[in-house]
């Protein structure tokens, strides 16, 4: 048989490609349920890490069902809000927002041709008082996403966990692999009143003589991963800005009497940390 004529070549390659496509489609469909279950458990362990229920490695030692149980046990409230910070619906059962759901909402937040509806973004409140919100955006090679948790004052970051699809190992991948990068977020404060909610820049915040950082919403970027750092910065700004109305509106009222340092008549701005208790 002459395997070199044109018709044979075209027919042969067509058949090969169709057969391979059919095999891959079949396998992908039949394994989808299992993969989704794994992905859900992974998302839960990322949220629990961010909310401070252990390190990622510790949580990963639990099996899938144990992760789901832990989430069910520790979640206080989970609901969906719109951009005005109003509750749209409750999240029933164990419903989490993995990268695929976040991608859709990311389009909705940003608008444009891929918008499928009004943004509906999730808020997860855990029993330890932390509020976890997701972020999503573009890294250098593919999507990056993560979960940031806020303490009960709704401005101080309690923890953060980021993940990515295909950032460069050893450089951009550090947003996920380097615990010291994620630890930088802890104790920082997001500035919800400005468009520049959070900054990831070279050098981080300027520091005073004793090494205490002077600006609360600035941290050091990753060396050698400028594009990933910028992508993460943009993702955090976009998403936290979408949550701004919720966070500003939900500020807990101070239960302590305000005495605002030197100026005792300074009005209570809702930020409890700035207020010392009145001494008797």
């Amino acid at each position: 048989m002459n395997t070199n004529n044109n018709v044979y070549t075209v027919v042969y390659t067509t058949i090969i490609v169709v057969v391979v496509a059919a095999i891959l489609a079949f396998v992908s469909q039949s394994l989808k349920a299992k993969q989704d279950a794994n992905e859900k458990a992974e998302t839960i362990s990322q949220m629990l890490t961010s909310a401070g229920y252990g390190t990622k490695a510790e949580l990963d030692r639990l099996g899938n069902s144990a992760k789901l149980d832990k989430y069910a046990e520790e979640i206080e409230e989970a609901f969906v809000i719109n951009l005005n910070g109003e509750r749209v619906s409750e999240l029933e059962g164990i419903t989490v927002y993995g990268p695929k759901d976040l991608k859709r909402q990311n389009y909705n937040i940003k608008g444009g041709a891929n918008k499928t509806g009004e943004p509906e973004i999730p808020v997860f409140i855990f029993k330890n008082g932390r509020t976890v919100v997701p972020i999503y955006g573009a890294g250098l090679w593919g999507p990056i996403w993560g979960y940031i948790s806020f303490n009960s004052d709704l401005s101080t970051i309690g923890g953060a966990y980021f993940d990515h699809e295909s950032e460069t190992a050893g450089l951009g991948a550090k947003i996920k692999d380097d615990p010291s990068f994620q630890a930088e977020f802890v104790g920082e404060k997001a500035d919800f009143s400005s468009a520049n909610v959070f900054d990831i820049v070279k050098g981080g915040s300027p520091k005073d003589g004793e090494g205490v950082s002077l600006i609360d919403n600035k941290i050091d970027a990753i060396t050698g991963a400028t594009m990933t750092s910028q992508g993460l910065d943009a993702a955090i700004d976009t998403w936290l800005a979408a949550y701004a109305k919720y966070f500003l509106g939900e500020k807990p009222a101070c239960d302590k009497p305000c005495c605002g340092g030197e100026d005792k008549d300074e009005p209570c701005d809702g930020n409890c940390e700035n207020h010392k208790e009145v001494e008797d």
Partner: protein
Amino acid sequence: MDAKLKETILNPIFKGNPITVLVLGICSSLAVTVTLKGALVMALSVIVVCGISSLILSLLRKTIPGRVRIIVQLVVVAMMVILVDQILKSFEATYAIDKQLSVYIGLIITNCIVMGRIEAFALGNKPWPSFLDGIANGAGYGLILIIVAFFRELLGSGTLFGFDILNRFGYVPNNLVILPPFALILLGCIVWVQRSIQKDLQEK
């Protein structure tokens, strides 16, 4: 088993090892050898991809049009790589390791060993020897991967398969060992050892 078949199996393990002698697949051997578990999963994946791709292409070898043979090889190898990736993602036990290996499972397709063995061996030999050749080359690659990972995990994290070995004796993990350059140094040492045993590899 006849001598030729035995040679097909044994040659890639030591004398013609794809990493240390042919110097193929270096890139991934630097990237995935930080932990023994990662290296083991990677090695098994390459063995499966290499073996089955060689088998399929050897079965098809007389029908493949010469002008598009590389494309046909690519399609088959890509299919195998995606299948392995999908299967790793589906099991609870392997999901985390698949996430850790991230792009490197997908990059098996660019591993020169797979396409190299298909082009050099599977297209000119019967299915059974081709299958064994693929498996053996994958195993030769995997062997080096596991040796490198053994030292890197032991010295870099003080553990083996995640179990504490050295740390309990007050060992301080060496961060250099975790970085890719150390894998290259280790590979160099392995090549050195092999060349001092196998004199015929030494250049005059």
